[in-house]
């Protein structure tokens, strides 16, 4: 019953409704891309180069004559796949790691924290470009790079919670009653420390979409002609000088919508999870 209450509370928020609507559209695009897209997303037709939006090509074509609408639809698959994979991996590694270094404070904890400082001291973008150029321009590599960038974020959030929780009386009680460290960590601390990390998931997916697009824009993301929003904006930006606006604009809007969707969902989740924010 308590869970139902939270779901209802979540759905009462306009930001959640808008976010879920956009998410639903994206999921439809992911699943039904071959049915929705009128053209192949990678088939070039030089004789249909740079055609303005029309009945034949709803959002126009790019310089190689590829249909922009079809590419945007298919790109949803790639962009969401990369972003969600990256965040799930980062969550799966970052959360237990944060729990460990929060619970056991010592040399290991200090070393891991300094390693995080090291990763986070680089501008995210520069580090991303460096890693992708070393590992190669594959979809999975981009996802791995993003995961590496996000692990410290999750781990730090959890660790901060653990640091305060481990001093609480109920933990001392559990320890006195003979519970093992493992049981204390996973049964008593983790459930109470998870909330900020769960809220962070949604925000991270938005960030991941933006980073993927940015990496592709500077040429360190996925390969041409993979349908990917950032790459599409990148090739479109070169045509702006000719007054050809549609090649860059539409994939740009797709990025904005996707980021907006996860930002709104994250926002709603935070308000629901945080009692002080909920009391309005």
């Amino acid at each position, binding site marked *: 019953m308590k869970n139902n209450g939270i779901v209802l509370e979540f759905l009462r928020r306009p*930001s959640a409704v808008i976010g879920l609507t956009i998410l639903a559209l994206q999921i439809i695009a992911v699943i039904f891309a071959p049915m929705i897209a009128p053209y192949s997303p*990678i*088939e*070039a*037709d*030089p*004789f249909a*180069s*740079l055609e303005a939006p029309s009945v034949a090509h709803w959002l126009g074509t790019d*310089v*190689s*004559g*590829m249909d922009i609408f079809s590419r945007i639809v298919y790109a949803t698959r790639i962009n969401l796949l990369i972003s969600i994979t990256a965040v799930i991996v980062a969550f799966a590694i970052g959360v237990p790691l944060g729990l460990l270094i929060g619970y056991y404070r010592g040399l290991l904890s200090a070393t891991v924290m300094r390693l995080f400082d090291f990763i986070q001291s680089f501008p995210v973008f520069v580090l991303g470009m460096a890693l992708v150029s070393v590992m190669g*321009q594959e979809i999975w590599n981009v996802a791995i790079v993003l995961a590496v960038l996000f692990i410290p974020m999750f781990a730090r959030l959890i660790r901060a919670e653990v640091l305060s929780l481990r001093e609480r009386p109920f933990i001392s009680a559990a320890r006195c009653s003979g519970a093992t460290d493992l049981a204390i960590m996973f049964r008593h601390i983790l459930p109470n420390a998870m909330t900020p990390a769960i809220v962070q998931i949604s*925000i991270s997916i*938005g*960030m991941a979409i*933006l980073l993927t*697009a*940015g990496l592709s*824009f500077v*040429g360190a993301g996925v*390969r*041409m*002609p993979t349908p990917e929003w*950032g790459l599409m*904006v*990148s*090739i*479109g*930006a*070169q*045509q*702006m*000088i*000719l007054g050809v606006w549609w090649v*860059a*604009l539409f994939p*740009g809007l797709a*990025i*904005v919508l996707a*980021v*907006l969707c996860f*930002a*709104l969902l*994250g*926002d709603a989740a*935070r308000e629901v999870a945080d009692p002080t924010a909920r009391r309005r």
Partner: protein
Amino acid sequence: MSKSFFSVSGAVGAIFALTAAATSMPVFAQDATTTLIVAGPRTPESLDQEYPPTEAGHEARRNIYERLLAYAPKTGEDGIVYEDFSKIVGALAESWVVSDDKTSITFHLRKDAVSTVGNVLTADDVMWSFERGWHLKANFRWYMTQVLKIESFEQAFAKIDEHTVKVTIPNPSPLIDRIWVNNDLGILDAAEVKKHVTDEDPWASIWLANHSASFGPYGVTKYTPGQEVVYEANDKYYRGEPRLKKVIFREMPTSANRVAALQAGSVDVAEYLLPRELSLVEKMPSAKVWKVFGNYIHRVEMNNEIEPFSNEKVRQALNYLVPRDGILKAIYFDTARMTKSPISEIYPGFTEEYFQYSTDLEKAKALLVEAGYPQGFKTELGYRTGDQIEEEIAVILKSALAKAGIDVTLSKLPASTLVERYSNGKIPMYFFRDMAIVPDAAYVANLWLNSASLINYPRFKNEEVDKLIDSSLTSIDEQKRLEGMRRVQQITVESAPWIFLMNPGYQLATRSNVKGYSWYTPNANSWFDFYKD
């Protein structure tokens, strides 16, 4: 809400930053008609003519060095001054004599050629330039040993008197005179350069990398790699004082920025614009685009030694799959022409008679079946980071080849990595862009098709072609040479060592008051010919 607002506004901001890539750098115009401001993609890597040839390097050489011979100028119907390849004229050599058997050439030097620092040309300058080139084992040495087949410096080069120099070669060469027109064979002001010789640097290579000392129309007074080069006129130049006293070359790597600077009037000349940008500049009333077809080649080479490209039929099939008309229209805005021979179309001996590749999917599929690849195959195509034209063509090629089941992975690689991979034979297909600056079919064939050539990257090997090239480089029977080169073109087109694509031409965008455009084979602008109204 603050956190999510941050990420949303961050997203919007990023999109703005992504799409608004075309912004201009402030460049201040000087209204004097004697100063020319040029925007190009990069400053020369070095001012030394022994540095490996590059487009930017060639342009510096064209303006600061003077050579022994030149081609006579001829004005085309388009008003552009070209070189007349059939007529050689003296440059620093006032006159010259080639022996009847074409094994020696004697140069009689001008007595009125004065360098940028005021030294008068003598035979010692020429001899020291030869000596330096020979010892540095780079460009000069390559031409002398590979083209003229010289084996010993002492036997080949001799000072006859203060104003006469003789070059003797072991075998007859049809190129014995025209080789000296070459952009890389400038004569140094030896008296000036020698001031900068040190024990560790006996040929002043360190000094010459960023200084100039020659008898050409300009001297470099400021050279800041990555930023600018300032050329100042040699007012005692033997062909007359240059009309432009000062030429300032600014590096602007992004072509859209060069367009914007030209449009704003902050530069007079914008080099190397993209075809679509040129189509835009042509519509500006204040600007003009000069277009020549030139000698560039742009093609996709295949490694002829590795499967499946070791099979001639596969290479032919690929040539039948390319939609050349579409590429011309979509990518080049009709500024390019198809290449139908390995030899540049403007050079003597060129023929397109043997070119039979149209876009013919059925024929390509039949060839692939004969070759044993009815289902196609997987391969990789490399192109240079930052080269939009190559990327756009690559996308079209991938699509076109997919129709015959060939699955191409496109690899965007930094130029240095791409060159390393294809020179080591480590990539099956790659874009190749080059120009052969000596207008001679045998010379061009020797560069790209001789199996012993270091830049025959596709590793094309045909014994008959090798023999014909070797005999054409030594034969002085012009008719026989031309026949041999026709056969070379026939064999090459039929065996398709590469995917024939385009001659992108050379185009220069200028303000409309800039006049005097001329074209030379290295595609380097000669500022001496330019002037402003």
